[in-house]
């Protein structure tokens, strides 16, 4: 919560200055957008609790003395009190106002008793030009309080326009003589239709027909304070809301003790509270009933920042549709877009059947003030564009315009048909400093090409390659360990012929590798087990996927394997295995090896995963999803499903 110092102000007045005191408090709350804590003290009652009051003096930030005829009289009566009091006041913090009297009325005797009188700020209140007087007062007060030092943009705001609106409607001196005890306790009124700041709504309490001024908080919330004296003498307060001549509603408030929300709602029908409002607080504190209502079931209650956050999960199309819901939506709905993906569908909407041209960019840039990045998904890029640097991700299905790459110097993600293309079109030097590349490696790709590519893209983080032949496979595998920043590696290999120490080398050099996916189109069970075994070199791995397409080499039953080899990869969260030889024992203790595993996929074409294996699998403490691929669900499982359901934790989605 924001905390700031609330200036403490003391207003000292005499009985005939009470109107002025009340009027000032009212005006300050209208004109000063900074909260003030105003203490009211009647001069005649200075004797009561004087010591306590006197001790508190250094704590106050400003003093306002409302000098009236009665006040001058009181100075004489309580001369000693007045002297000690003014003595301890800092005259620079003191503002003296002459109400219904003039400076000449103050005799030397008075001045002697008012310590530091000559150094105080002095103002004469006039009823003829009350506007200028108030502006002067507020300026003077702001000098005293030195509000600028609070570094708060809500500092004192003497807006003439606002003031004029106020002065034309506000009751001026027709206030009754009752004391107002300004407290933080307020009563809020909520309205069904928005009211502007200048519309005035009044509240009358009980039969007295006193109108209380209602403060404007926001278009739906107004608040007022019930004077303390009314609460202490009435058991039930009948509060009526009046706007102009229109009676808005009446509500009774029982003045007894603290009520809770439900109790209140039961006791008092809230017929004059709009549907969209709900009761928020009712407290009985310091002899005051504090009631607050607020609009809680309307999205309007949220500020722009929360609204922006909520709307940031909308799709692009929904954002456009929602733009005209309200001005808040218009302000917030597009600001969170920093990246836009242009796919075929969006391209058609932007440019029709033609190629992507430049016309759409201003269209988007106007709407999305924070747009920095454009992704192209299977869309040909525009020929020449000033916005080329915005594009960081390209997804090529069109080898033809690859030569334009030189414009797109901010490219970080590239998807190509074949890695050889960049050499064919002599753009190999343009494809550099990439973070991610997805492509195939076709026949004809040479060691030289791979070496150039790796040298230009040392900081590559994500590499997805599909090799066409054994020859290219060996080239690619050879160079992977030269990419020290690699975090994600996905290789699709035609063969299982991989040099013996390859995984060791990659594990040692690519220390940041967290995701590894290997698809081998032919792989013997023996190699599979060996590969699984070599995963111990990838200790930081979080996601592992090992797949093979051919199963004809898997006949050898002796190649059953243990998942315990994965015990070195304790950080695994995603594991995808394709296997035919997992026995119940393979899963034993899996929960100890892989404590963080969340998603497990088992490609099991031969139904080797037995029911008992589930008991091991389901012990995994963090497991969220379990997928068994290609399993012909044996009938016996159905009957035991309920057993399984008992084991499945509440978080597991099966």
């Amino acid at each position: 919560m924001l905390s700031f110092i609330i200036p403490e102000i003391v207003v000292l007045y005499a009985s005939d200055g009470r109107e002025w005191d009340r009027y000032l408090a009212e005006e300050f709350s209208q004109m000063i957008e900074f909260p003030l804590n105003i203490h009211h003290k009647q001069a005649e009652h200075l004797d009561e609790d004087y010591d306590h009051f006197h001790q508190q003096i250094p704590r106050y930030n400003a003093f306002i003395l409302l000098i009236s005829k009665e006040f001058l009289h009181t100075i004489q009566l309580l001369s000693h009190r007045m002297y000690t009091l003014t003595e301890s006041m800092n005259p620079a913090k003191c503002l003296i106002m002459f109400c219904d009297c003039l400076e000449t009325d103050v005799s030397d005797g008075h001045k002697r008793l008012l310590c530091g009188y000559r150094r105080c700020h002095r103002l004469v209140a006039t009823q003829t030009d009350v506007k200028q007087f108030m502006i002067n007062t507020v300026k003077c007060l702001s000098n005293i309080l030195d509000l600028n030092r609070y570094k708060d943009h809500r500092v004192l705001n003497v807006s003439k326009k606002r003031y004029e609106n106020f002065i034309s409607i506000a009751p001026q001196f027709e206030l009754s003589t009752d004391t107002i005890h300004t407290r933080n306790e307020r009563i809020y009124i909520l309205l069904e239709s928005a009211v502007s700041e200048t519309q005035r709504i009044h509240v009358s309490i009980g039969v007295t027909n006193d109108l209380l001024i209602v403060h404007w908080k926001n278009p739906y919330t107004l608040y007022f304070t019930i004077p303390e004296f009314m609460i202490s003498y009435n058991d039930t307060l009948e509060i009526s809301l009046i706007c102009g001549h229109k009676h808005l509603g009446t509500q009774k408030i029982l003045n007894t003790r603290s009520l809770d929300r439900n109790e209140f709602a039961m006791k008092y029908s809230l017929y004059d509270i709009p549907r969209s409002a709900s009761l928020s607080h009712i407290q009985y504190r310091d002899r005051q009933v504090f009631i607050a209502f607020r609009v809680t079931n309307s999205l309007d209650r949220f500020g722009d920042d929360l609204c922006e956050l909520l709307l940031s999960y909308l799709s692009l199309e929904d954002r456009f549709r929602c733009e005209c819901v309200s001005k808040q939506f218009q302000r917030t709905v597009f600001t969170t877009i920093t990246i836009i993906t242009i796919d075929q569908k969006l391209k058609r909407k932007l440019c029709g059947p033609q190629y992507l041209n430049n016309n759409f960019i201003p269209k988007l840039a106007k709407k999305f003030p924070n747009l920095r990045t454009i992704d192209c998904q299977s869309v040909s890029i525009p020929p020449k564009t000033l916005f080329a640097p915005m594009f960081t991700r390209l997804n090529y299905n069109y080898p033809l315009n690859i030569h334009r790459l030189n414009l797109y110097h901010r490219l970080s993600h590239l998807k190509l048909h074949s890695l050889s293309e960049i050499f064919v079109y002599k753009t190999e030097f343009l494809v550099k400093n990439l973070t991610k590349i997805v492509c195939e490696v076709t026949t004809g790709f040479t060691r030289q090409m791979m070496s150039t590519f790796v040298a230009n893209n040392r900081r590559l983080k994500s590499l997805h390659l599909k090799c066409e032949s054994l020859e290219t496979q060996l080239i690619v595998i050879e160079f992977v360990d030269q990419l020290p920043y690699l975090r994600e590696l996905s290789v699709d290999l035609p063969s299982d012929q991989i040099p013996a120490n390859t995984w060791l080398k990659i594990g040692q050099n690519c220390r940041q590798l967290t995701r590894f996916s290997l698809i081998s189109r032919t792989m013997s069970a023996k190699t599979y087990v060996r590969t699984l075994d070599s995963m111990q070199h990838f200790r930081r791995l979080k996601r592992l996927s090992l797949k093979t397409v051919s199963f004809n080499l898997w006949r050898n039953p002796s190649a059953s394997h243990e998942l315990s080899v994965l015990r070195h990869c304790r950080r695994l969260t995603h594991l995808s295995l394709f296997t035919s030889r997992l026995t119940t024992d393979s899963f034993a203790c899996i929960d100890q090896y892989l404590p963080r595993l969340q998603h497990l996929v088992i490609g099991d074409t031969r139904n080797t995963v037995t029911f008992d294996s589930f008991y091991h699998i389901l012990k995994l403490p963090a497991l969220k999803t379990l997928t068994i691929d290609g399993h012909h669900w044996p009938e016996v499982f159905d009957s035991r499903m309920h057993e399984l359901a008992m084991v499945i934790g509440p978080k597991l989605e099966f």
Partner: protein
Amino acid sequence: MADNADHIDGDDNEDVRAQQNLIKIKLKSSEGGIYECGLTAAKMSDLVKNMVESLGTDAVVTTEPIILGNEAVTDAALKKIIEWVEFHWDDPPVDHDFEDEKDRRNEELSHWDKQFIDVDDQALLFDVIAAANYMDIKGLVEVGAKHICSKIRGKSCQEVREMLKITNDFTAEEEDAIHKENAWIYAKD
């Protein structure tokens, strides 16, 4: 060797988290209701976490409840929030790996979260979201945001306004102008 040490730390942390969640601290709503919540669960709120860290765990456990002064933190909202953090405190930490952000945004809510957030009382829903935002529980705000966005999906402006009780502060002309400007996005494929 370093790697092994890391692993042991990680497991220890999980144990410590589980143990700490047995410690109950008290949270006080703006309406005055006091509710108990496991320490680790409560620390999912950055606001509570900061308070606990600055006060020291012992002080929090033995002394006064932590006061959540924002008016959105009603009794009902706080109960909901505690229900959520008590269910989610042992979630694995978010994988800050690259490119996860977009995936996570698009990820569907889990079944439990969907049931949790689908409350009939819209005022309560908004209280929960506002309170979660105040208490700085990012995961829960995200659940709320996804829920609201899923409700907005495919609806017209007027339907959205009626559903979320939003005041239309546009004039008819302004609204038409926006519709015209955005016409291209509604074009049929």
